[in-house]
């Protein structure tokens, strides 16, 4: 197929490790992560930058993996839900989501935790918690317990 001619080598750091992949420059970073590299913790809810399920940290800031072409990832530092905390331990945010009911079906949860983690580490990045999460939609919880979980982390409970 002609697309094959357009392959490009892309190097980036993912969850602290260097990666090099050869792919079409317009491949969505979301597909690269999920399909080529097997990091399926990042989810797809819309594919059009609306739901927030695909939120990752891209060069230290929350970003939507469904909107990023692979070429743009060249040289980037990327963290996905798999790179938050370590293998067995939960981070404070994950722990609080589990304790206080922040996850129901769980499909929005990885993206939500990426946004929540960034906000809790950078409280100046948004006026309010509500605003910090406005790009991450959840159809199950009604958000209340997500806010509760974040409050607990803020208060260090």
């Amino acid at each position, binding site marked *: 197929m002609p697309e094959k001619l357009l392959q490009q080598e892309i190097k980036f750091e993912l969850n602290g490790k260097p990666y090099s992949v050869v792919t079409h420059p317009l491949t969505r970073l979301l597909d690269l992560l999920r399909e080529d590299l097997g990091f*399926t913790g990042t989810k797809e809810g*819309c594919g059009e930058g609306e739901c927030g399920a695909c939120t990752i940290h891209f060069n230290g800031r929350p970003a939507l993996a469904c909107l990023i072409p692979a070429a743009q990832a060249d040289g980037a530092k990327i963290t*996905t839900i798999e790179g938050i905390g370590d293998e067995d331990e939960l981070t404070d945010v994950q*722990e609080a989501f589990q304790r206080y009911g922040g996850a129901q079906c769980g499909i929005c949860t990885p993206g939500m935790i990426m946004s929540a983690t960034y906000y809790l580490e950078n409280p100046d990045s948004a006026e309010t918690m509500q605003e910090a999460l406005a790009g991450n*939609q959840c*159809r199950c919880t*009604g958000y209340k317990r997500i806010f509760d979980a974040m409050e607990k982390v803020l208060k260090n409970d």
Partner: protein
Amino acid sequence: MSNSVVAPEQKEKQRAEAGLKYVGKNLERQEGIPKVKGQAIYIDDIQPEGCLYGRTVRSPEPRGEIVDIVFEPGIPWDEFVIVKPEDIPGENICAMIKNEIPFLADDEVKYKGEPLALIAHEDQQMVDRAINHITVKMKTDGYPAFFTIDEARSKQQVQYGEDNVLCSYQIEDGDLQAEFDKADLIVENHYKTKAQEHLYIEPQGIIAEVVPGEQVTVRGSLQCPYYITGALANLFAIDETSVRVIQTTTGGAFGGKEDYPSILAGHAALLSLKSGGRPVKMVYGREEDLLATTKRHPSDTTVRAAFDKQGKMLALEMDFALNGGAYPTLTSTVLSRGLLHSFGPYNWPAVNLQARAYMTNSTPFSAFRGFGAPQSIYALELLLNEAAEQLQLDPAELRRRNFLQPGDSMPTGQVIKEQIDLEQLMDRALEKIDYRRKKQEFAVFNRENDYKKRGISLATFFHGSGFTGDGEEKLASRAGVKISSENPLEILVANVEFGQGIHTGFVQIAAETCNLPPELIEVIEQDTDKVPNSGPTVASRSTMVVGRLVQDACEELVEELKNTAGLPDDFTTEDFLAASKNYLNSYGELYKEVQHHDPPEEQWDEENYRGSAYSGYAWSCDVVAVELDMIDYRVKITDFVSTVEAGQLINPDMAAGQIEGGIVQAIGYTLFENVVLEEGVMKNNHYADYIIPTAADVPSIDVEFIEFPLKNYGPYKAKGIGELPFDGPAPAIAGAVALALDKQFITLIPLLPETIHDTLSKLEETTDA
């Protein structure tokens, strides 16, 4: 060894005295840790070796006859697997309630987007490109289509039966005419609600593998494993036991994954069969999901009610109509539930309640949290608010004077046996929101402000747990528990976890009954080869009906251990584990399975549509305060209080999570969510074009549970609550908006800014004229 059998009443008493150890506690979500770590595996996370990707060829017209399906040149079609209706080995019918939905339309197409053929290829990009190079030629002459209840009712064209009526029900009770004759006030109005999209964040998805001569295997995002075994057995003309269905972690469902996965599973399985047994994956993109899958039924309801001047309710007349769409799906049960919730928690001396669902050439409408009840309750509750205004009574007072009391009968003849106290339920909600003070303050505020107006209102309602009428008796669900060599206790049920927390609840029920810590209890995965058919995960039935089966099975298991393995009457965890070990050593695994039968006092007469419609009801009151911007007509919810009675809560935090989530979904239904139907299909089928509540839109929601001393049948006296919270917000919000608008009632939801604007302009025109 003591063999004394404790009488059930005695057992209840002992337990009450002992206090509950696990039930009623906030056990953490059983499957929660993989979810927060991003390790839970959803269907789209699975990439089977050698898998093909399937897509669906859909009808470009709402009605007509297929003349030709043209596969355009430029695509290597010989590399594709293509399935048409003639490839179906069994019946081309997806069995639901009425067997009328084809997997692939054959002769007559009934709605735009209806599946006609299937294609699959191993390169997903290729199949996504190919699907746009298929042209469907249709004959539409002589096939006029219609889309609305009004058109169906007009009978200008008849496409179903004699009158386009898919199904109908009626409840008559008391002497209607006599009560209307006595009336001091008769209020009548007409209410409409639109379709609603489930918008589970995980779209529909299935992977099927059909190796010729072997079992049919289906994995996917779904609510009802045993609906799919039945549907596929019919499709392939094989025995139901030859179909294996495995649920994968399901990213939201809300009713949307009740029936549709049977169709999608059929499609993927047909492609797999035709490919010679390769796995076929079909995961819808968001656009296709919005376009093709079912939605909440639009409704159109006329209500007429009579009152005396003290505000006593005398008679209720209702004509409740749903748009069913092109095929019957689950519409008849949705309609029935809607009707059985239409009279509310009030004493009506006489009623005549009619319900009809109409066939139209729209995408079929089907199950969605609330299941018809939100539509009928919206109409009734809003009418009560109008009546209260005309009677110059506070809407809370009008309700107070008419609440059902223990011993009263519903219009179906069902007698209220539990010690309900709806006044207490409502008063607590009013007190929490500070209703009286707010109402006075808002009146002053509204006099002094032109650009913002405030309102406060309420709704009181109930929701029946479990299948309607004799549904549970017919379903005869089975659930089991097992002491195995791997696990101290296993729970075997077909009810899936999709976020509602039911598996955690089952574990708590089993822990309580067996006096076993939750960490020793395992819920076996929902794989039809492993678990018995405990029925679908719908109808707020899992906690009450299946939870009860889990409790009963555990009790039988405990009895068995007492009888054969030395378990003392009053046993500790250690005793249970020691007796289990004894049993395992002597006899091997211990499995107990029980089957549901309706309690003898809870019988339903389907023919006369009378009796005990549900064996348990949860009760609730919502009170809402809003602020309306008179320039852009946006409604902001400032306060929301919900009091809920759902018997003993198995897990209070998770129960509250269900109520909060349901309320927010219902706020979306009332204020933002606008399915634009064009030629019967969702025109705004992009995520960005369908607005659901975000973190920035939600008010703080204050949920409080109270418990009536009661007699009911659920496990440890628990009832279902999954759907209850969806029933109240629409009328409560619409009532509050009406108050903000100085008692101008808007009878159409969603209350979009343009809806409010247009209605007000029309009202002005009529007053000017």
